[in-house]
């Protein structure tokens, strides 16, 4: 099962918060350049899975491997692992006391040891690519939600991660600002970035995911191509979930 070439292998991950079992034996293998969409109701474990992969939450049992290296092993330097995995949060979490440029270059300067000049040159290339060049000297609170979230994505990309985790990155945005963020993710997918995307945007998941995983009660109940998952899901629970989405007019 465990291909050493896989970008990410998740083996039988368990996680509970007190009495609440959030992840109940998740298995997932992600090849390089794959874009995985995690769908499922709130509380199904999508966010917790991403937070476990980023080692923000320690797992109770199971293993996680990045390019064959076990990151859940004892004694692993978590800071070294985290710099290889980018994560973007629902609520942006930009540093409000720093200008956009400093938000983006903090990691490269302090973690990767780049010089300020190198880090800023590289950051400017990324900011320009995502239409944020003229915002480089602004503080985050001068930006719209969509701009802030794009800066958060750029901040994660500036670390040149092997893997990017996106945790419902459009859920906190006004509807009219969702498209600009989705377009950025689309471009990253086209560029071959390996991504795990927890999302409620089903149309988006159908368009860009190479594989869709439906989480239910802390397990991956079903996974498959977008065509299969949204066209003819095997599981009754998956059909039920998608029907509710369609009724809500979200697909």
């Amino acid at each position, binding site marked *: 099962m465990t291909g050493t070439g896989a970008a990410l292998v998740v083996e039988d991950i368990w996680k509970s918060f007190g009495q609440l079992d959030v992840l109940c034996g998740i298995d997932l293998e992600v090849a390089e350049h794959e874009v995985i969409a995690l769908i499922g109701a709130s509380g199904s474990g999508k966010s917790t899975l991403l937070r476990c992969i*980023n080692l*923000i939450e320690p797992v109770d049992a199971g293993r996680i491997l990045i390019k064959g290296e076990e990151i859940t092993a004892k004694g692993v330097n*978590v*800071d*070294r692992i*985290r*710099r290889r*995995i*980018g*994560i973007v*949060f629902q*609520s942006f*979490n*930009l*540093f*409000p*006391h720093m200008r956009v440029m400093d938000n983006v270059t*903090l*990691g490269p300067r*302090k*973690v990767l040891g780049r010089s300020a000049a190198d880090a800023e040159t590289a950051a400017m290339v990324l900011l320009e690519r*995502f*239409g944020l060049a003229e915002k480089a000297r602004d503080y985050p*609170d*001068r*930006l*719209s*939600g*969509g*701009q802030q979230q794009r800066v958060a994505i750029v*901040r*994660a990309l500036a*670390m040149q991660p092997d893997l990017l985790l996106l945790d419902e990155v459009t859920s906190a945005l*006004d509807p*009219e*600002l969702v*498209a*600009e963020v989705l*377009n950025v993710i689309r471009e990253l997918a086209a560029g071959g970035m390996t991504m795990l995307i927890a999302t409620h945007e089903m149309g988006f998941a159908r368009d860009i995911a190479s594989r869709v995983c439906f989480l239910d009660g802390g397990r991956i109940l079903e996974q498959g191509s977008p065509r299969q998952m949204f066209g003819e899901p095997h599981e009754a629970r998956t059909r039920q979930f998608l029907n509710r989405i369609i009724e809500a007019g979200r697909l």
Partner: protein
Amino acid sequence: MRATRGPRFGLGAEGARALLIAAGSTAVVFGVLAVVAVNSSGWPLFQEKFLNGPVFWEALPKVLGKFWINVQLFLIAEVLILVLGLLLAVLRSLPGPVFFPVRLLATLYVDLFRAVPGILVIFMLGFGIPALRIPGVPKDQFFWAVVSLTLLYSAYVSEVYRAGIESIHPSQTAAARSLGLSHAQTLRYVVVPQAVRRVVPPLLNDFIGLQKDTVLVSFLGVVEIFNEAGILESARFNFTPYLATALVFVVVTLPLARLTDVLLQREKNGRIASGGSRSAAAMQRVSQPLP
């Protein structure tokens, strides 16, 4: 009806009336208090012993001259307190079981120096330690005055810092750690800079307290403003020098107190303003084509 249009150009009828009432009632209250005070039986004696013009003008330059000692005490202790207080707050926030003894020590320190009356610490250190005659340990009273004030106030200030650090949302730490920043780097670049900004007003408040408490070290025999006032008082049996001293502290403290108010107000306004500009930027964003 016309009056309601007034406020655009000045106070308007309503505002002018309110101002008149406020001025009138203030004048009446202060006037009555003054008349009562001046007509009370002890007034002439009080005036002679507390509000003595010639004594005041003689004492003021002398106490002001010694106030320089208090300013030095205050400024040196201030810097040390800011550093030690932050260090204590950071030590108390270190995670993990390995650092338990460090957290315990820092907590004990803060508990101890907040519990013990300041004058006791000043006496124990200022008289007690030099009395041990340990070679190499300074005997200078000013030195021990600075040490005492630093120990006492860094305990308070560390609690202010700690409240600031804990007020920074955990998502900020999560974001910093997810970039690969260590715990120390996260504190240094993300958490502490935001925390310090938030606690400037309460810190200023503590410094007002410190300014006043510099007179406590007069008990060690350091001739600062309060001791000087005492010398002048006993020479004439007149309390006006104390009044002059009090006035010096009021004059120095008032700007700090007002600055604290201004900073608090600015922080409040800043939040409102940035919230407003955010939605303005959002509005602007809608009308622009996607990049």
